[in-house]
């Protein structure tokens, strides 16, 4: 049990503190840092999917007036560590995937850098490549762990026996598409290397965590942490793709070190991001579910096949939500990876849970149909008392309440019959559950100082648009028992106390915990009337971490879909989500996170698909004209609600993290609604017109 903060500032829908700077456009993102006389970098990429560079002719580029340097594997400095082969830029002639970095041109202007990059002539010895994921790929292997450290496979009971004898079963294969994070701000940096300075490297980087970013740079370049300062006050979206640095960060540092004293700016183009900035692996999910006559699950199993790159393993934990979502005596989860000649897959909002709540939540809908049972009711009947995987009690689990409240708000009971037609449109409704684990990182520090009548809180946290600039002062105010206007919070700089990454919906939980500890220690040491300059640094208290309970946020999503009878056009006029995610620190910013996640889930359901061309080994639609994300006109009535959930086990705020749960389950709700409207069950995402057109009633 944690001593929960008394909410005063917490729970207030305060306007974003960084809001005015953002609506004016004066908030400076990494590339925009005002520096004197910057040089501009433009990458050169490999034009083959596998093989080696045989020759690089940089003479034409170097002859261009205004080009300052051309770096390739032939002249770039040797890195201290090349263990992470994604980050070992310009170290060897080997090419492991199309689009890999093979050079960089530095010039006086961005136009000249780009022109120079075009002038670099690269010859390759091409080898046969294999970049196509198939369910029976001959090289499939079992990774040691799946992200970040979960068991690869789990098994209990006998799924096959249950499938053979159960009253109703579903056995189907579902798949999710390769998708790219595509934050609107590209991966971008400004780097300055000043060899004689006390802190030689200053890196303004677009990152989800300045301290983890610095650690990665130090590892690759063999620098001490005192030699590197990373600054990032604003992030133009990350969605996981800025959670760990990609090759572009090492490239800009390499470039800056080749040009001492001169700031270097590098922003990946949108097209380059499809090769270099991470993505979510496509997933193939073979599901088996079995139930008795009353709808009680007798078996649930998921066998996942996904891809990874040959040079660096990334094992998306797609099977993990099946382990805890519903109880069944017979259970199995497995993960197998195909190592391919592809760009390195990486974090994408709700890794594991997002793809892993697609197959199972559609399979449940199919099971409900087979049983003749309402899909809301089926989920309620299978709500487990304790975590089926660990046997631990839940810290709090209000999925049933979310389903019931959602059904009420959505008007589920009065939903139109299957294949209902309204003029030219078929109309259907669907439901699915959402889940995301409640995480808190092991370490983060916060400093509290009394300064000229105000409280200053310092922590190297990141605000990706999530609201950290605004919600951390709310937490600090309640922890110090002062008005929120008396608190100033400083984030986004490695000069501030070290903070964990903004990932896994753990930012507020972790940083808020550190701030609470610091505030309590501050009050304990200096009382209610501190003197100017009094300060305390506090750390996340690992000893106070609850390990007796299984902690997750839950939710229920309801979608209304309309499918045009003649064209197959798909519309989603209504999308409602109800969440039980602990205490909500700021309802204004929280609502934006929930609806943002849900809308990204809608985007996954209907639009997003990095179309892979296995002949050449690249994404064919590698820009925002061809890679479709949901736009304004695709969105109808999107509503997020939440329960007033009290959880004394998770942390002092009682918060569970809300950045990711909104994207989980959404695509299944949409697919289930499409089925209700048309009778067509689309099992591979996204649901495009061609997948429904032939089967319309």
């Amino acid at each position, binding site marked *: 049990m944690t001593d929960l903060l008394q909410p005063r500032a917490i729970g207030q829908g305060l306007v974003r503190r960084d809001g*005015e700077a953002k*609506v004016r*456009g004066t908030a400076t993102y990494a590339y925009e840092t005002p520096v004197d006389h910057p040089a501009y970098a433009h990458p050169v990429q490999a034009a083959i999917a596998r093989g080696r560079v045989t020759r690089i002719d940089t003479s034409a580029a170097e002859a261009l007036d205004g080009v300052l340097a051309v770096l390739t594997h032939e002249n770039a400095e040797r890195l201290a560590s090349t263990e992470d082969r994604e980050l070992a830029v310009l170290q060897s002639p080997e090419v492991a995937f199309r689009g890999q970095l093979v050079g960089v041109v530095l010039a006086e*202007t961005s*136009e000249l850098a780009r022109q120079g990059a075009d002038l670099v002539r690269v010859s390759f010895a091409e080898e046969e490549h294999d970049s196509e994921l198939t369910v029976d790929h001959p090289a499939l292997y079992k990774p040691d762990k799946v992200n970040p450290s979960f068991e690869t496979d789990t098994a209990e009971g006998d799924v096959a026996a249950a499938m053979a004898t159960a009253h109703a079963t579903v056995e189907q294969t579902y798949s999710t598409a390769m998708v790219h994070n595509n934050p*609107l701000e590209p991966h971008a940096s400004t780097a300055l290397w000043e060899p004689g300075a006390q802190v030689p490297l200053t890196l303004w980087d677009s990152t989800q965590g300045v301290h983890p970013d610095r650690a990665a740079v130090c590892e690759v370049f063999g620098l001490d942490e005192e030699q590197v300062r990373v600054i990032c006050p604003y992030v133009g979206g990350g969605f996981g793709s800025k959670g760990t640095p990609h090759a572009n960060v090492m490239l800009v540092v390499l470039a800056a070190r080749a040009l001492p004293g001169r700031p270097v700016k590098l922003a990946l183009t949108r097209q380059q991001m499809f090769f270099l900035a991470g993505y979510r692996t496509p997933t193939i999910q073979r599901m088996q579910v079995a139930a008795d006559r009353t709808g009680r699950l007798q078996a649930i199993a998921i066998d996942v096949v996904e891809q990874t790159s040959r040079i660096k393993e990334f094992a998306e934990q797609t099977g993990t939500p099946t382990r805890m979502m519903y109880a069944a005596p017979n259970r199995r989860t497995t993960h197998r990876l195909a190592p391919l000649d592809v760009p390195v897959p990486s974090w994408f909002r709700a890794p594991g849970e997002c793809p892993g709540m697609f197959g199972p939540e559609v399979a449940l809908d199919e099971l409900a149909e087979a049983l003749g049972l309402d899909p809301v009711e089926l989920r309620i009947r299978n709500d487990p008392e304790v975590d089926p995987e660990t046997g631990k009690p839940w810290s709090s689990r209000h999925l049933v309440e979310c389903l019931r409240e959602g059904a009420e708000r959505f008007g589920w009971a009065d939903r139109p019959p299957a294949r209902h037609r309204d003029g030219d449109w078929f109309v259907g409704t669907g439901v699915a559950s959402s889940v995301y684990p409640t995480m808190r990182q092991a370490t983060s520090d916060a400093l509290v100082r009394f300064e000229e009548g105000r409280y200053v809180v310092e922590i190297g946290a990141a605000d990706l648009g999530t609201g950290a600039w605004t919600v951390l002062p709310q937490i600090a105010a309640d922890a110090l028992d002062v008005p929120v206007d008396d608190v100033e919070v400083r984030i986004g700089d490695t000069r501030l106390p070290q903070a964990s990454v903004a990932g896994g919906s753990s930012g507020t939980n972790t940083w808020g915990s550190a701030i609470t500890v610091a505030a309590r220690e501050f009050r304990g040491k200096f009382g209610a009337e501190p003197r100017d300059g009094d300060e305390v640094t506090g750390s996340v208290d690992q000893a106070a971490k609850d390990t007796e309970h299984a902690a997750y946020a839950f939710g229920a999503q309801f979608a209304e879909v309309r499918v045009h009878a003649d064209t197959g056009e798909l519309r989603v006029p209504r999308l409602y989500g109800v969440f039980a995610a602990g205490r909500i620190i700021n309802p204004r910013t929280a609502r934006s996170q929930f609806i*943002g996640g849900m*809308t990204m889930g809608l985007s996954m359901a209907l639009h997003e698909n990095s179309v892979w061309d296995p002949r050449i080994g690249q994404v064919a639609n590698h820009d*925002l004209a061809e890679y479709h994300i949901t*736009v304004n006109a695709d969105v109808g009535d999107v509503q997020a609600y939440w329960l007033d959930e009290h959880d004394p086990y998770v942390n002092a705020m009682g918060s569970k993290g809300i950045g990711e749960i909104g994207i989980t389950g959404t695509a299944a709700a949409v697919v289930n609604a499409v089925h209700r409207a048309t009778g067509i069950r689309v099992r591979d995402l996204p649901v495009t017109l061609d997948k429904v057109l032939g089967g319309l009633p």
Partner: protein
Amino acid sequence: MDAEISLTVDGVPRRLTVDTRTTLLDLLRERLGNTSPKKGCDHGQCGACTVLLDGERALSCLALAVAHDGAEVTTADGLATEGELHPVQQAFLDRDAFQCGYCTPGQICSAVGLLREVDRGWPSHASADLTADPQLTAAEVAERMSGNLCRCAAYAHIVPAVQQAGGVQP
């Protein structure tokens, strides 16, 4: 090749020598230090670079600076005056119509342009009657704002923000 041009940016007249390949967006961001318009795609596919060019919304990444000699450019930063936000900016704050903020200046310039277009009676794909005065319905706003991508997906808040700024109860 270089060329000399004159521009007025957020009310300030400028005389500049530009590389003829330089886009208006790069001129603003890299030469003038005005980073209010953002670069999201550089191909006119995302709308983050939207500015008002002689009063109309325009994608500054698709505009070559040399082709706009004498133009008046207004960025989102230039919409705010004397420390007071433009009504569209205030509405975006009121409705929390953004998260990361990167697409926001473009959304705001686009919304300002949109409101003028509606005032002048310009129809859209969402207008049922092409000859009637368009109304600021949610469908009209969503359609007209669809050239501005928001990856944080604040769309459901952007629409009422634009309606509010246009004097319509969302």
